[in-house]
Structures are given as structure tokens and as C-alpha cells.
């Protein structure tokens, strides 16, 4: 053929012979230079349109073909457009042909050059025949070329200029099938770029007309167009469902299809798929009558369509078989998978037997050897898994899916991972997550990031015990730390901070400290450890090897190898440690001093600010600054889900799954709601009490958050403890810890009094609730929290102990409700049981006071009198990290100076308050007070004897510094802590006037 020339052949041969990519590029560049030269007229005589008029038709075609060739090889071609336009404008079909092809390939819609040939394209598009020529060109040749080009160029101006012509061409009676099918797809292409060009409702009847075309090529194209349009506004095209079902019925049930459209004996699978895809846009089509504008549709017709559709899908499902021809098998299965997709979109409105059938097929597919079928089986099963009630039947295949997770093919592995993710629920979460973690060790880099993200989401979603979640994330960090994004470890921090219940925070702090202990550990682990220790390190500071100093040492060993971002976190943690533990200050100071010269501005600033904070601000302000972070706002969508969405798009089964909260999550959320309130208030009160009987460390500024500041604002409808009574409450609680009776709480409405007596491991506590207001209180309830270490028997005024919100008793004006608690302690402990008091006033105002009962460890002490030698012997034998607790407390500035009289008060605290036996002989100077006691529990050991814990305490005063040092040594760490805490609080209380 004349349009291909020897020059082009040579060029292609040269490129083929090129030995390297560089050589090829060189040859292409040379050719481009040559063509550029050819396109530039000698003597500068350029035609109006910028082309070189001196070129012959043949040359022009040849060079344009070369450009096309170079373009197709992947090189950028940015010139020669003018010559292409000349070819397009030509009247000769051979030139036009080359021109349009080049136009399609070389130009894109935004190219202004396109506009110069707009009128030519329009003319070609609208005038079917150029039959004045004597040759017999098919009348639609030009039209076809133009349509094809428009579809490939897709420029906005082009669309605006030509969309109505394309539309007319599509529906014109004169258009040949060849033109029609091209016009349909061309229009779809335009609509994809600018949806507005077709008005759905008016256009739907015209599509209906096209759907009745007998030419299967036209039908296929029209169906593509319809699917595209309907996916945009399904409602506009719902009336066409009957047509689509009819065509599908012809193909599937009657196998009516022209021979040339059979593909390996399957009637046009392409068209079948388009039809099924269209039907997937109408998930309710089986139950709802389609909205038909003309009202001709009767219920009977509609029922007929539904029956037909059901039998079509059923036939596809049951009669698809593996055939020896891979092409036939693929085509048939393509249709089958589309049918299954349709069943999935119907969901529970579809017939049960179809759903079961689909499930059975997919179960078979995920274990076949054909990789494509297996891949699609996994993919489709993940979609099916979203349907209600499918979970159980899918779980049966868990083992098969786990096998696919180890497949050699990354695509199959990805799908298996996705399906595992989707089928995961509370029952199998631990097994699936553990399997995934185990597999992560072997997984290759390509899939690791995805696995890490999904494991993190599952662990969070289905953790019944959040400690398991923390452990899982730590495992992820140690196995594949590089893939644990910031979002993942931020989430850990968020969850740990927001769940103060139980020992999660202490557990996390301890676990991370251990994780960060080795010299080599992943930097992400250092980051989480640094943050969590800064926040919750104080909870474990009393454990052996976990003191503040140890925490600093362990974190600081990573300093030199850390990035700036990590160092910035470490800097803040150091500031918090230094604030908490005096012994850390000399360690931290030089680090800050060095960092003031850091090249990183952030670190420089932090170091400088932290270092000078103490001089610049009051101690309260410093403590405010370094206080633990308030709970994070619980965002609806976690950052991890967002990440998943970014990666997989909105429609991915995994994304849908991740967005749905799990039972464990809902339970946690509910717990958090109830507990968060209680816990927060309990905490607030604990802090209000300024006590250490509760697990907090009294001198820790981080735990000493002033109550009320962090309270959520959504409690407007409930009246809690007013802020102003908190200091008094704090004092009352502390007092009651060491005295047999007193007032625990008092405000204008209510007074709570306590009377308590203890014998050995048992105690009897009476609580009185007095109504001080002028109106009765309704639904009055007292809820005492069950704790592990106390056996509690409760008796109270009728209704007082009701759990139901509408229950409770009524407390009339000036009367009391009474609660009697009989307790027996079974194990050492260091906090106080919580009690919530809830009632309603006559105005309907709901009051809720979280209180703590002053039942602390020292209540169960029995004094022991020891000889000085025996005391010292035991004192020494109990030396050691976990048995000893020590704390220094400063007397407030306004306290009287420490003299001997003061010391007798201290001694009274020890003997009467703490119920210890004074060991006089051990105190050579008046400045120490030593005592011994036994903590009695009701628990029995193996021999049937009660288990008791021996406790020793020593208070040493430093009159010059105005400070006391309290040291406790007991057989049980919790006892040491508890005794120390009560002692500290009592001393503080005594020192205030």
C-alpha cells in the first residue's frame, strides 16, 4: 500500500536493531529532527495553517505515520499537528484516513489545534456520503472516521460543539448500523466527560428504540451507552428494565443469536455482561414495580419479568460448566460472576435458593486450580460476605482461604487477605489475626503494608481485651516496623488514653518499656514507648526496674540513632519525667542543654522551652503544661479506615466492612460512655481527693489534674459534683480514711455520712444519705461498684440498691436513706471502691455523684508491737524494689514548723490513723517514727490459715527542708503503695491548718 513507505520500514528496522534503550532513543531523536526539518518549509514560506505547502501528499503521510509510530512507542511527540490537520481537511479518503488516525493518537482534547478542524469534523460527521466522486466509497466511511476520532480525543470544546450532532447521528434513520454503534459509544465517551449533555428522561425512549435494533453490534453498543447513562442517574432509565430482561432472556434462555456473534458457542457474552451490569444498578427491582411513566406496565407484566429474570439467573448459575476451551470457559464464567454479582446486589430481597447456589459455587471456585477463577471467587465471596446471614456459611471456608493467603501469586494473596478481613468477626478474630501476624513474617514487601493496616484495624475492631490489641500492634512493629504508619501507632495512643478502665494504661506502659529495652528496636516502638511512658509511666514507676530513672535510661539509649521526629517526642517525655522524678532532672538537663543547639528547629524550641519553664512559670503552670493529655475526641472514622479508603476506593468490600462498627467496638463504646463518665468522675474525684489511696501518685503532677477541666460538655442534663465542693470533699475523704465516722459529701441537697468499724479482715460500714433540700428526692439509688478484693454484702433502705433507672427509693425532706455494707477483704489492694449516687429532684433534674467509699487498705490493719531488733531485721529483709515504696512530701508553705509537737501528731497518724504499732526503740531521734502492722485478709492459704501481710512504715522528717520522707516495706507491693499513699495524704492533711 502506498501509505507505508520504505523510509518508515528502514526506521522500524533500525529501531528493532537498536541494542539498548539509549541507542533507540538516539535513533528516535534523529528521526524527530529530520521530520521537524521536513515540516519546516525552506525559505520560510509557511501556509496559513502552519503547514509546509511544499510537502507532497505521500511525504506528508509518511512523516505523519512516523510520528504516530514514535508516539506509539511511548515517546512524546509535540509537533507536526499542522500537517495532521492538513490531512484531516483533505478530500482524499487515503489522506483523511491517516489524518484522523494521527489526530486520535497525537492530539488530546485540550489542544487548541483541534478547533481548527472542528468544521471539517462536523461536515464529515453529518454528511454521510461524498458520492459526487466517481469511486464507490461506502457512504459512512467518513462518518466512522470522525466518530472514532471524537471518541478518542474527548476535548471539552469538541464536546460542546459536536455532542448534539453525535446524538442526532445515533438516532437518525439514515445512519447505517456501523455508524450507529460507533455513535453510541462516542456519545457515551462524551457523557463520561460531561454528563450534562444528555437529558435522561427525554433520551430514555430513544435508547429503548435502539434496544429493539436487530443488529447485535448496535445492541451491544447501545447497551454500553445505557449502562453508562444509567449508572449516572438510575431512576431515569428504570423503565427500560423490561427491555433488558427480554434481551437477556433471548440470549440465555433461547440462545437466539446470529452465528457471527457467537463467541466459542456462547451467545455474545459481551452483551450478556452489559445487561447483567445494568440490572445490578437496581437492587430492588425484584420487589418493586418499576416506575413507568406511561403506565402501560401492569403488575402482571412486572411479575412475568421477575419470573423470567429469576429463571435466567438460575439457569446461568446451574448450567455453567468448565469446558475444555479456556476461552469458552472464561466467557461463561465471566457471565456467571456477573450473575452472582447481581444476586449480591439483590441481597435478602432475592430468592434464597439463588443465594445458596451462589455460595456453593464460590466455595467450589476458591479451591480450583485455575488461578483466574480462584482469584475472582475470592473477590466475589468478599462481596457476598457483606450480606446479612452469609457469615456462617463463609466461615466454613476459612481454612481454604488461609491456604490461598500463602499462594505464590500476589493477586490471589491480596484477595485472600481481603476476604479474611471481611469474614473476620468476634468469634474468629483472634485466630485470623494471629494467622495473619504469623504470615506477616513470611510475606513479601509488596503486600506487607496492606496486611499491617488490615491487621491493625481488625485487632482494634474485635479486641475483647484491649491488651491483646496493644500486644498485636507491638508484634506488628517488631515484625514489620517500616510498614506501621504513624496513623497506626497514633491510634494505639488514642485508644490507650481513652480507656482508663482496668489496667490497660499501666499494662501498655510496662509492655512498651520492655519492648524498648533492647539496644536495637524499631524506631516506631521507641516513639510509642516514649509517648506512652510520658503519659502513663508513673503508673508503673514503682515496679522493679521501671522507675522514672530506668524509664529515662531505657528511652535515652535510642537517642543517638533516632530521627528528629522521634527526638522531638523524646524531648517532651523527658520534660515530663524530669517533672515527676527529681532524680531524673540532672539526667535530663544536659540533654536539653545540648538540644538548644540542635539543627532541627522543633527540637531546639522544645528543649529551650522545657529547660526554662521552671524559671519562667509558677509550679502550678508547669504542672498544667505537663499534665497528661485529655482523652481524644472519638472521631467517627479512624485514620486507618481513611487510609484503607484512599487505597481501595469507596466500593471495596473491605472499606464497607471497616466502616461498620463491630460488636466489640459497640460494647466498648457503650462501656466508654457509661464508664467514661463514671471513670472520669471517679478519676476527677480521686484527684479531687488528692489521694493516693487511689492508684495515682499524689505528688505526680500528671495525675493531679484538677477535676472538672477535662469533663465533657455533654452532661448538661445531669448534675454532677459542683466544682466548689471538691476541695472539701477531698479533705472529707482523706479524713475518713483514718477516722471511724464523718461526713463524706455535703452540698445543698444531700449529705452523705459514713460510720465504719473494722475487726481484722472484716468491716461494717454504714452510709447515711440525708436529704437537706426542701423537697423529696426521687428514684434515689446508690450503686456500689463490685471490686475483686472485697467481698461485699449490701443491705439498704427499700429500693436504694435497685439497678433499674426507674427504681430507687424516695427520700423525704429531712429524712435519711441508709446503706449497710459488710465487707471482707480477700487480697491486698490500693484503691477505694466507687459508689455512684443517683437521684432526681422534683423538678426532674437528674443528679449523679460519683463518690468513693473510704474503705482503704489501712482499715484492715492490726497493730503489731515489735522489738527494735526484730523490727530492724524485718526492715532489712524487706529491702528491695517491689516491696519498698518511698516518697517525699513537702509540708505546705503555711504549715507550722516541724517541731517535736508536730512529730507527736505524726506519730498519732501512724498509730491511730494507719493503725500501726509504734516501735519506739527504733527511733533514736525525735525526727523519725517507725511502726509495724499486719494486714488481715479473709482469704485462706493452703493450710486453711488466713493470709496476712506484714507491713512496716517509717516516716522521717527533715525540719530544715520542711519535708517528710515516707518509706513503707511490706510483703506485698500493693500494700506498700497503699500504706504509703494513706500516710502521705494524712501527713499533708495534718500540715494544713
Amino acid at each position: 500500500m502506498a501509505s507505508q513507505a520504505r523510509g518508515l520500514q528502514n526506521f522500524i528496522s533500525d529501531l528493532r536493531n537498536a541494542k539498548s534503550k539509549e541507542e533507540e532513543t538516539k535513533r528516535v531523536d534523529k528521526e524527530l529532527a529530520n521530520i521537524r526539518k521536513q515540516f519546516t518549509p525552506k525559505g520560510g514560506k509557511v501556509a496559513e495553517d502552519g503547514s509546509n505547502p511544499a510537502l507532497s501528499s505521500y511525504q506528508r503521510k509518511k512523516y505523519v505515520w512516523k510520528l504516530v509510530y514514535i508516539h506509539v512507542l511511548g515517546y512524546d511527540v509535540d509537533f507536526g499537528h499542522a500537517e495532521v490537520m492538513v490531512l484531516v481537511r483533505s478530500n482524499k479518503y487515503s489522506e483523511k484516513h491517516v489524518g484522523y488516525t494521527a489526530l486520535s493518537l497525537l492530539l488530546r482534547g485540550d489542544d487548541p489545534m483541534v478547533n481548527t478542524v472542528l468544521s471539517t469534523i462536523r461536515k464529515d460527521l453529518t454528511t454521510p456520503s461524498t458520492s459526487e466522486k466517481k469511486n464507490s466509497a461506502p457512504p459512512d466511511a467518513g462518518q466512522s472516521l470522525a466518530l472514532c476520532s471524537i471518541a478518542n480525543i474527548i476535548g471539552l470544546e469538541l464536546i460542546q460543539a459536536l455532542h448534539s450532532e453525535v446524538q442526532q447521528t445515533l438516532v437518525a434513520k439514515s445512519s447505517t448500523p456501523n455508524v450507529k454503534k460507533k455513535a453510541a459509544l462516542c456519545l457515551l465517551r462524551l457523557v463520561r466527560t460531561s454528563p450534562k449533555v444528555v437529558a435522561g428522561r427525554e433520551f430514555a425512549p430513544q435508547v429503548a428504540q435502539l434496544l429493539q435494533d436487530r443488529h447485535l453490534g448496535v445492541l451491544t453498543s447501545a447497551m454500553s451507552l445505557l449502562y453508562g447513562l444509567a449508572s449516572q442517574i438510575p431512576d431515569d432509565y428504570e423503565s427500560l428494565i423490561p427491555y433488558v430482561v427480554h434481551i437477556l432472556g433471548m440470549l440465555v434462555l433461547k440462545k437466539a443469536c446470529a452465528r457471527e456473534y457467537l463467541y466459542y458457542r456462547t451467545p455474545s457474552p459481551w452483551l450478556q455482561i452489559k445487561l447483567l451490569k445494568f440490572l445490578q444498578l437496581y437492587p430492588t427491582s425484584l420487589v418493586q414495580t418499576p416506575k413507568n411513566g406511561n403506565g402501560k406496565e401492569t403488575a402482571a407484566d412486572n411479575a412475568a419479568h421477575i419470573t423470567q429474570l429469576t429463571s435466567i439467573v438460575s439457569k446461568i448459575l446451574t448450567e455453567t460448566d468448565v469446558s475444555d476451551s479456556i476461552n469458552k470457559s472464561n466467557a461463561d464464567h465471566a457471565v456467571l460472576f456477573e450473575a452472582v454479582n447481581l444476586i449480591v446486589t439483590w441481597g435478602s430481597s432475592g430468592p434464597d435458593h439463588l443465594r445458596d447456589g451462589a455460595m456453593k459455587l464460590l466455595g467450589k471456585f476458591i479451591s480450583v486450580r485455575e488461578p483466574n477463577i480462584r482469584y475472582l471467587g475470592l473477590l466475589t465471596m468478599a462481596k457476598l460476605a457483606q450480606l446479612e446471614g452469609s457469615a456462617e456459611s463463609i466461615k466454613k471456608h476459612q481454612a481454604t482461604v488461609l491456604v490461598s493467603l500463602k499462594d505464590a501469586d500476589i493477586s490471589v494473596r491480596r484477595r485472600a487477605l481481603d476476604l479474611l478481613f471481611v469474614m473476620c468477626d468476634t468469634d474468629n478474630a483472634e485466630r485470623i489475626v494471629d494467622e495473619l501476624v504469623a504470615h506477616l513474617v513470611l510475606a513479601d514487601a509488596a503486600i506487607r503494608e496492606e496486611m499491617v493496616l488490615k491487621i491493625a484495624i481488625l485487632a482494634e475492631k474485635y479486641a475483647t481485651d484491649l491488651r491483646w490489641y496493644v500486644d498485636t500492634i507491638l508484634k506488628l512493629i517488631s515484625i514489620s516496623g517500616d510498614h506501621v504508619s504513624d496513623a497506626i501507632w497514633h491510634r494505639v495512643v488514642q485508644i490507650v488514653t481513652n480507656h482508663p478502665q482496668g489496667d490497660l494504661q499501666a499494662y501498655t506502659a510496662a509492655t512498651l518499656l520492655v519492648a524498648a529495652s533492647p539496644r536495637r528496636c524499631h524506631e516506631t516502638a521507641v516513639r510509642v514507648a516514649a509517648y506512652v511512658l510520658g503519659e502513663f509511666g508513673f503508673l508503673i514507676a514503682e515496679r522493679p526496674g521501671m522507675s522514672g530513672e530506668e524509664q529515662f535510661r531505657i528511652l535515652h539509649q535510642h537517642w543517638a540513632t533516632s530521627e528528629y521526629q522521634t527526638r522531638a517526642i523524646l524531648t517532651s517525655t523527658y520534660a515530663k519525667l524530669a517533672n515527676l522524678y527529681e532524680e531524673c532532672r540532672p539526667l535530663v538537663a544536659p540533654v536539653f542543654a545540648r538540644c538548644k543547639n540542635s539543627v532541627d528547629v522543633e527540637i531546639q524550641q522544645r528543649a529551650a522551652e522545657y529547660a526554662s519553664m521552671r524559671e519562667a512559670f509558677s509550679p502550678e503552670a508547669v504542672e498544667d503544661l505537663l499534665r497528661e493529655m485529655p482523652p481524644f475526641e472519638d472521631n467517627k472514622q479512624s485514620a486507618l479506615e481513611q487510609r484503607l479508603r484512599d487505597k481501595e476506593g469507596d466500593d471495596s468490600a473491605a472499606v464497607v466492612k471497616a466502616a461498620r462498627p463491630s460488636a466489640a467496638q459497640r460494647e466498648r463504646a457503650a462501656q466508654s460512655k457509661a464508664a467514661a463518665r463514671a471513670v472520669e468522675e471517679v478519676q476527677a474525684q480521686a484527684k479531687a481527693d488528692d489521694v493516693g489511696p487511689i492508684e495515682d501518685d499524689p505528688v505526680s503532677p500528671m495525675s493531679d489534674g484538677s477535676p472538672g477541666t477535662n469533663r465533657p460538655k455533654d452532661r448538661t442534663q445531669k448534675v454532677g459534683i459542683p466544682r466548689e465542693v471538691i476541695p472539701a470533699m477531698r479533705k472529707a475523704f482523706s479524713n475518713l480514711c483514718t477516722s471511724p465516722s464523718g461526713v463524706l459529701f455535703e452540698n445543698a441537697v444531700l449529705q452523705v455520712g459514713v460510720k465504719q468499724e473494722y475487726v481484722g479482715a472484716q468491716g461494717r460500714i454504714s452510709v447515711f444519705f440525708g436529704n437537706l433540700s426542701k423537697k423529696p428526692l426521687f428514684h434515689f439509688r446508690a450503686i456500689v461498684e463490685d471490686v475483686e478484693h472485697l467481698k461485699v454484702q449490701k443491705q439498704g433502705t427499700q429500693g436504694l440498691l435497685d439497678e433499674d433507672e426507674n427504681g430507687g427509693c424516695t427520700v423525704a425532706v429531712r429524712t435519711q436513706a441508709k446503706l449497710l455494707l459488710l465487707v471482707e477483704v480477700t487480697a491486698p489492694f490500693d484503691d477505694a471502691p466507687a459508689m455512684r449516687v443517683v437521684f432526681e429532684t422534683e423538678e426532674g433534674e437528674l443528679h449523679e455523684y460519683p463518690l468513693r467509699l473510704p474503705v482503704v487498705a489501712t482499715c484492715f490493719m492490726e497493730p503489731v508491737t515489735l522489738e527494735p531488733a526484730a523490727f530492724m531485721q524485718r526492715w532489712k529483709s524487706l529491702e528491695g524494689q517491689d516491696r519498698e515504696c518511698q516518697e517525699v512530701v513537702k509540708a505546705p508553705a503555711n504549715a507550722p514548723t516541724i517541731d517535736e509537737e508536730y512529730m507527736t501528731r505524726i506519730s498519732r497518724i501512724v498509730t491511730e490513723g494507719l493503725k500501726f504499732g509504734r516501735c519506739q526503740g527504733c527511733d533514736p531521734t525525735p525526727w523519725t517514727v517507725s511502726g509495724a502492722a499486719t494486714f488481715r485478709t479473709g482469704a485462706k492459704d493452703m493450710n486453711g490459715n488466713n493470709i496476712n501481710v506484714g507491713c512496716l512504715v517509717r516516716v522521717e522528717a527533715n525540719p530544715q527542708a520542711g519535708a517528710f520522707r515516707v518509706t513503707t516495706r511490706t510483703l506485698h507491693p500493693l500494700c506498700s503503695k497503699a500504706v504509703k499513699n494513706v500516710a502521705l495524704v494524712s501527713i499533708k492533711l495534718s500540715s494544713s491548718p
Partner: protein
Amino acid sequence: MPATDITGEAMANSAIANCGWSFVVLMSRQGKIRLSEFFQSYTESEKRRILRDIGADILPRAPKMCNIVEKGTYKFVYRRYASLYFVVGVPLGLNELIVLEQIHLFVEALDGYFNSVCELDLVFSLHKSLLILFEMFIGGMLCESSKREVLKSIVEAEELVEEMTKPGEDTASQLDDGLSFQEQFQLGRTPGRRTGPAAGPGGRR
């Protein structure tokens, strides 16, 4: 509601299900590109990235693996014929198996035209392959699924070109190029008939 702004191209693309190929690339085992056509607007760097990904993700795959490779927001569906890979980029949600068969349909059409096609045919008659591609796929969507129809229109167009070119019109330039009659005959050979020299080293299917 879909975008109503006529300039809102990005919005529009997300509103309407994309129902065709995004691009097609024919790449040899050695990583040479034999044909590439992008049906969507891609920047040059995006194109380069896709071509690089094909080389990295598809060529090394073992024959028994599945023919689908996920790339986040789109997928590669590919088929290997001898040493030539036909790689198609499709959006998520398109039926992968039918895309595989669309590739095969295209190959069958090429086969019908070149009478047992080989890689060399594609190299030297690139424009023919392009014509067939454009006849079968418009904007990436399958337009004609009957091989006979496709070949009929290609042959018709070719005849038209021959007829419309006046005899001798380009003779002078052809002589300049030194194209012998024999060569002309080879290049312009009629469909369905194979000529000797072109059957070179390219692997047969």
C-alpha cells in the same frame, strides 16, 4: 446527583461507571513496547509510570499465576501470546474475565487479518494493528465483537484508500525513496496472504 458542571471533568469521571479499557499496551518479553494506546487522559509521567509498572509487575509473573494484577485504583489484565504481552488497564469493577476474552478477540482479529499473526507483523504494520484496534474499540469500549464485521470494514477502507489514490500520483516520491516494485507489492499485500520475507524471527503463537 452527578456533576452538572460541564467543565467538571473530574467529577464526571467518578459519577459515571467507567465501562471500558483505560489503556492497552503490547509489550515484548524483553520490555519493548510494540503498541500503546491510552484511552484516558494521562500525563506523560503517568504514562511512563504505567509502562514501568508493566515491566516490573507483569513480565516476571509465572505462567500459572492469574491474569489480573491489582494496582490500587485500577487493574492490569494481561494475556501472553508467545513472547508478546497484551496488557490492558481497567478500572475496578469491570469484569476481568470478559476483558481477557476481549483481548483474545482482538488477537483473533489480528490473526484473521495477518493470517496467523506474529510479533513482526505488529512491528512492521503497526498502522494496521491500530486500525483494527480503533475499529473494534472506541474510547476503550468494545464496539464490534464480530470478527467478520471488523475485517470487512478494514478491507473496505483499504480498498477505498487504494481506489482513491490516483495511479501514479505518488510515483515520483516513491522513486526518490527507491522503493522497488517488488517491495511495493510486499508492503501492500492483500489481506489473508502471507509473503515470505516478513516471517522473520518473531515468535509464533
